[in-house]
């Protein structure tokens, strides 16, 4: 299975190449060959190639070459291996299922009545990988250092294993951000940074001190390697001795390498997964999470222009789409079915109000689409396109040229819409065009993604993408954190979301969501298309205990932050 590189070469090339490869080796003084081994006194001395009997598990998590070693969880360029495998959070939220958060560094937590205080019980006996104790002070520091979130007012250590956080407003909705996405860092390392820019500039690439199952072994511009933390707080974990993350540019290269057995674990869109799984050595799981939709600039009151500001046009377009074909051809049948309520089917079913459609129609209904337009006063022109008051139902659909699956989808959408008398003109653009359009609202249609929620509750998606508080007038750019690209603004939705934010009572929440769903299913500010596939591939010959469809103990993606630490901590192997 594991194919070593064959050593065949042309002597001439070797000779000429040798000269400056040596030069390369010399100039690479920045490479952490001379890295002090992390772990300090607690780490065993397993150096020396003679003792390395096992090969490392090889992961591709999306890093591109050259890799810059950065293991600072506060840095935007932090490497995948730092979050999860080295640094951990208090709880693990499994976003694939509707389950309770799983204790990690925290054991339990409790909000007060109005959601302004959160008391967290910590696990006792956890040590940092440099041998020091993990304490309540470290947790307090992690929440109140120079990178403190705005909604946190204060944090205090009640006793050695209890921490109390105070918020400046009811903060039920920040539960995941606080407990599931804030990484615990040691005060004795990060305490020295007195300002945010100093904190961010810290690469932390020598011996990052975390609590996770792995510690850093070596990092170069082509790869970085983690090795097992012998003092990890979970007994018997990790089973893996070494994990190596590779830098690869281009999905097709990664796919070919997985095929050749040179990668053991990766998550990547592969249009023909059978080319990898066909031999039976590799298993794939597909966990669709994030919706792909058509953003429509929907709200004429905030300055949107174009045919799509009429709800009848949006409805007709949605009816005209043959989502089954779009999924089959553009997304090679791997995408998930989307719910018009935007609740993730399977996981969030309990939040879909009675009477709301669960799945969106997969087949086109041209007759119905034409009826909707006719009822709204449109009539077909001689060119086969509907029009009203001399205005043709014609819209420009923007798509990023690099995103080949989206480009394919737009081509299908244009031809399907045409069949229903709607003209959709595809315009490919680059990142800037896409970004500017959706931030400023200066567009008619855009194909784009939505960020699925990290826990089994569509709240964040409703609030960030649908409410009037999270949008701006056309021409004014959205602020970071605001995602309502469509300029959709609806009092009923805004009020229902307010209600849901202030409660932990499921019945109240569900009633509020029902109001939201009724509005957005009718108004269609985002026209739902599919749920993006997230394919993960595992080498099941040499390694076992991967997540499976039946036992999805964590989000299986190799780039998932907390979850990848759980997955790698769980995997057994390699088999001898």
């Amino acid at each position, binding site marked *: 299975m594991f194919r070593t*590189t064959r*050593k*065949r*070469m*042309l002597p001439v*090339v*070797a000779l*000429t*190449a040798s000269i*400056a*490869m*040596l030069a*390369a*080796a010399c*100039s690479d003084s920045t*490479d952490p*060959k001379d890295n002090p081994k992390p772990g300090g006194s607690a780490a065993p001395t397993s150096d020396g190639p003679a003792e390395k009997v096992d*090969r490392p598990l090889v992961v591709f*998590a*999306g890093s*591109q*070459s*050259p890799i*810059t070693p*950065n293991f600072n*969880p*506060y*840095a*935007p*360029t932090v490497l995948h291996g730092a979050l999860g495998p080295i640094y951990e959070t208090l709880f693990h939220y499994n976003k694939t299922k509707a389950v309770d958060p799983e204790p990690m560094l925290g054991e339990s937590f409790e909000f007060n009545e109005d959601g302004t205080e959160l008391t967290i019980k910590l696990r006792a006996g956890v040590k940092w990988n440099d041998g020091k104790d993990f304490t309540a002070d470290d947790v307090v520091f992690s929440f109140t250092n120079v*990178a403190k*979130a705005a909604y946190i007012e204060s944090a205090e250590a009640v006793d050695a294993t209890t921490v109390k956080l105070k918020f400046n407003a009811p903060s039920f909705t920040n539960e995941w951000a606080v407990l599931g*996405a*804030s990484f615990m860092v040691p005060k004795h390392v990060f305490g020295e940074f007195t300002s945010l820019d100093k904190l*961010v*500039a810290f690469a932390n690439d020598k011996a990052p001190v975390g609590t996770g199952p792995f510690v850093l*072994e*070596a990092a*170069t*511009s*082509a*790869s970085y390697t983690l090795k097992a933390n012998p003092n990890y707080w979970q007994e018997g974990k990790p089973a893996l001795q070494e994990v*190596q993350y*590779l*830098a*690869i540019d281009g999905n097709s*290269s990664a796919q*070919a*390498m997985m095929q*050749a057995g040179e990668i053991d674990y990766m998550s*990547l869109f592969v249009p023909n997964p059978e080319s990898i799984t066909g031999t039976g050595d590799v298993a794939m799981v597909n966990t669709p999470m994030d919706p792909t939709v058509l953003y429509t600039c929907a709200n004429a009151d905030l300055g949107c222009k174009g045919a799509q500001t009429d709800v009848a046009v949006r409805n007709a377009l949605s009816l005209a789409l043959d989502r089954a074909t779009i999924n089959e051809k553009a997304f090679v049948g791997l995408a998930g079915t989307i719910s018009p309520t935007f609740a993730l089917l399977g996981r969030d079913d309990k939040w879909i109000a009675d009477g709301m459609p669960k799945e969106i129609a997969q087949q086109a209904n041209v007759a119905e689409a034409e009826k909707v337009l006719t009822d709204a006063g449109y009539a077909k022109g001689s060119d086969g396109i509907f029009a009203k008051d001399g205005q043709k139902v014609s819209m420009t659909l923007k798509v990023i040229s690099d*995103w080949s699956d989206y480009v394919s989808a737009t081509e299908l959408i244009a031809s399907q819409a045409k069949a229903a008398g709607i003209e959709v003109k595809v315009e490919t653009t680059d990142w*800037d065009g896409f*970004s*500017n359009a959706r931030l400023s609202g200066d567009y008619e249609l855009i194909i784009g*993604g939505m960020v699925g929620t990290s826990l089994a509750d569509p709240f964040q998606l409703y609030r960030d993408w649908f409410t009037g508080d999270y949008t701006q007038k056309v021409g004014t750019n959205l602020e*970071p954190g605001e995602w309502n690209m469509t300029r959709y603004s609806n009092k009923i939705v805004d009020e229902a979301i307010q209600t849901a934010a202030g409660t932990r009572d499921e019945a109240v929440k569900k009633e509020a969501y029902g109001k939201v769903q009724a509005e957005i299913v009718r108004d269609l500010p985002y026209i739902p298309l599919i749920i993006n596939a997230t394919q993960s591939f595992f080498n099941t010959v040499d390694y076992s205990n991967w997540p499976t469809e039946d036992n999805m103990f964590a989000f299986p993606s*190799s*780039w998932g*932050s907390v979850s990848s630490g759980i997955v790698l901590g769980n995997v057994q192997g390699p088999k001898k």
Partner: protein
Amino acid sequence: MKFYVRRITFYLVTLWAAISLNFFIPKLMPGNPADIFRENLLRQGGEITPAMEQTIQLLFGSPDDSLWEQYTRYWSNLLQWDLGVSTTKYPTPVTELLAEALPWTLVLVGTATVIAFVLGVGLGAWAGWKRGTWVDSLIPGSALLQSIPYFWLALVLVAVFSVNLGWFPIIGGYSAREFRAGPEMSWAFVSNAAFHAILPAATIVISSVGGWLIGMRNMMVATLSEDYVTTAEAKGLKPSRVFLTYATRNASLPSLAGFTITLGFVVAGSIVMEQVFSYPGIGKLMITAVTQKDFALMQGVFLVITLTVLAANFVMDIFYGLIDPRARQNV
């Protein structure tokens, strides 16, 4: 003397203009790097934690000073060889990234260019010598090779030799699995790196050998009908002597000039190839910089490229000035 003063002045002016352009072009580019960075992270499959969200804006915050202040600071930093810090590879200084990437590109593309040149000129000289025979049928073949799109050839080579046959590695400058600590000074590493260089080098050689061949062949044919060659033959000199000393030597001058210039483009000429092979060179850095709007890195890469091209041109000018007195008058 006047010739050299003029040339040097010319190069200084060009250098100034090119470096200034390097400064202004990225400044003129639209787009918000922070936004691109964030979305790229999501698209590549990353999660943005709340802590990172806070720091991205800090990292990409644009300076408030005027363009002129930035320009003068750019020059003063440049003179101290400080090219700033890359944002996509934060917090690595650009100089470090360049120093790490440059040897790979220089060695691979340099070697391949030399091989292509020697091969092309050698075959071209031979084809010229054998003009009017079946060897002329090399010409259409060379013309075909010359027009093959680089990256297409690279992809086909990878699909055939790496993926299907499994003879060569798919990507990379060396096996990151075998050399986890990075490049090292050992025969094993060097041979590994050379092995990884075969397909990329083959791509360059195959697609550039045709140009050299045709050029050299034509020069050779022209030279062979010069009077002094005729005279040499008439004197009864050995064909091998006529071939080497009289014809090839003179005919290869323009090719040599072209070669010097091509060497200047060694750094720039491999962008597409490096992208296909994930080769850790300058071209890769440039793609990263341009697509992710990493301005400091972009300026650094452009600077290196411009400097090498200028240097190569300069060397060739001087070289020509030395061997060809006519060039000195005809500036």
